[in-house]
């Protein structure tokens, strides 16, 4: 699948934003995050909003994007839109509560915002996981992966902000745990998609298997088309392996190590380490998300390439 920049950015940024919102909503009311939390909330909403706006760049008619919330009964994309919009309400209420220091409201709004964040990320993940023609997406580890990545990147960001606010071992600890968990999940996912059988074959796509091995002879047109550009993206195995290593190193291992380091160092060095960790994590996730598209194959290509 073609890794459209707007979508790669959207899932990375919004994922991190929802992760941050999730942790903030859960931990801030419990006092496990130092400082007022408004900066973290602002960052979360910024990432979420930037991501959502970016995703509309992918649309042929962005001015009609409002229509996308109407089909929540069947469409995960619509549900994602609904969840995203609804999540703004507790998130903003949380902001208000933090601003006016209303703990009860903060607790309630925080929990609701956290729930909204989970729901939104879940819906995003389900957009991909529900697509049968793309076996790398239609996979049981895709939804856990999205949730874990979101939680991890949110935790790293929260830990960074907490460190700047002078404390907050809990977010760093969470970053370490979610990072390790996400890494394991991701490795399991890659292992799984590398060994999974195809969901369909050129033989089943053409019904010609009963004759024998089937090979494409001539394409319908000699030039490109929308589907080929959208779904015919190919990445060399070697290239993908390299990117996977970079994603694992930069996106997971290093941020986790830096978070560990931050726990040991404390103070400004911890903040700096976690800042570096956050940058690496987000950068690594961009690569991981890009790979998520680049390595995905669509059954329509069976018709073109067999």
């Amino acid at each position, binding site marked *: *699948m073609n890794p459209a920049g707007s979508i790669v950015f959207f899932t990375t940024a919004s994922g991190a934003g929802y992760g941050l919102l999730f942790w903030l909503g859960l931990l801030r009311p419990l006092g496990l995050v130092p400082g007022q939390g408004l900066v973290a909330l602002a960052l979360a909403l910024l990432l979420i909003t930037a991501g959502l706006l970016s995703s509309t760049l*992918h*649309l*042929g*008619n*962005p001015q*009609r*994007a409002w*229509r*996308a*919330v*109407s*089909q929540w*009964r*069947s*469409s*995960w*994309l*619509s549900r994602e*839109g609904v969840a995203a919009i609804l999540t703004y309400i507790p998130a903003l209420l949380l902001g208000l509560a933090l601003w006016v220091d209303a703990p009860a409201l903060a607790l309630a709004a925080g929990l609701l915002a956290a729930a909204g964040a989970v729901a939104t990320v879940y819906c995003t993940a389900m*957009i991909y996981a*529900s*697509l*049968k*023609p*793309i076996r790398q997406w239609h996979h049981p580890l895709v939804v856990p992966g999205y949730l874990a990545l979101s939680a991890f990147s949110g935790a790293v960001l929260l830990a960074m902000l907490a460190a700047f606010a002078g404390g907050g071992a809990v977010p760093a600890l969470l970053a370490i745990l979610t990072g390790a968990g996400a890494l394991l999940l991701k490795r399991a996912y890659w292992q799984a998609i590398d060994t999974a059988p195809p*969901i*369909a074959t*050129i*033989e*089943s*796509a*053409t*019904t*010609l*298997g*009963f*004759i*024998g*091995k*089937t*090979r*494409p*002879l*001539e*394409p*319908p*047109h000699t*030039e*490109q*088309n*929308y*589907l080929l550009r*959208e*779904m015919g993206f190919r990445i060399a195995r070697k290239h993908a392996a390299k990117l996977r290593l970079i994603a694992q190193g930069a996106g997971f291992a290093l941020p986790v190590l830096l978070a560990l380091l931050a726990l040991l160092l404390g103070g400004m060095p911890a903040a700096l380490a976690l800042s570096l960790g956050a940058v690496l994590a987000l950068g690594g996730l961009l690569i991981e998300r890009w790979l998520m598209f680049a390595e995905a194959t*669509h*059954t*329509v290509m069976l*018709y*073109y390439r067999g």
Partner: protein
Amino acid sequence: MTCLPQPVPGAKKLGLVIDLDTCVGCQACATNCKEWNASGHSAPLPDLRPYSAGAEGVWFNRVHSYEAGEGAAGRTVHFPRSCLHCENAACVTVCPTGASYKRAEDGIVLVDHDTCIGCGLCAWACPYGAREMDEDAGVMKKCTLCVDRIYNETIPEAQRQPACVLACPTKARHFGDLGDPESAVGQLVRERGGQPLMPELGYQPVNSYLPPRNRSSLAATPEEAAPTEIKNPLLRWMDRVLSR
């Protein structure tokens, strides 16, 4: 609404039956579809860079060719590919706006170009590549089964069929109600063993592909009796009595 219509026994399922045994890959269905729809329900079907490098356009019907098998058992098969109007059409259910819909009245899957946001998700959801993005207008388009022909009261009744079916010079395309096993297309599918594409995905395509037939061989045995052994083989015709 992007919910699929409730299945009702006996409901109409309009669709195509494509005979892979007689399709010669002439592209008539593809270009006739293009010309009909260029000014039809989905008008226009734009072509990008039409006279330059990278020319490409919106086509609802694309004809591939394949080779199946090897040696004497191998075959070349031409393979037109268009929307299959699936019963379990994920392209419809994934649509966030309701622009993509499956009609309860006849099962045709359509796109409302006035409400489509061009997100492309339906194209991702379609295993068969039936969705065609109009990148000029930013909306998704697709085969309509010529919904503006088949019910068109200004067209003679015999020609109220999809353009691809009427054009097909080898009569390899048939249109009808696949929900009715006794319809002409229903019988054709039954008799010729019509196949769905990628049934394992569970989309339940309505369109059906008739497989290339077993090559009937009259399989005469060559006569080994060799009259050439006769010294002069011409002699056997010497006494043959012929009359006008």
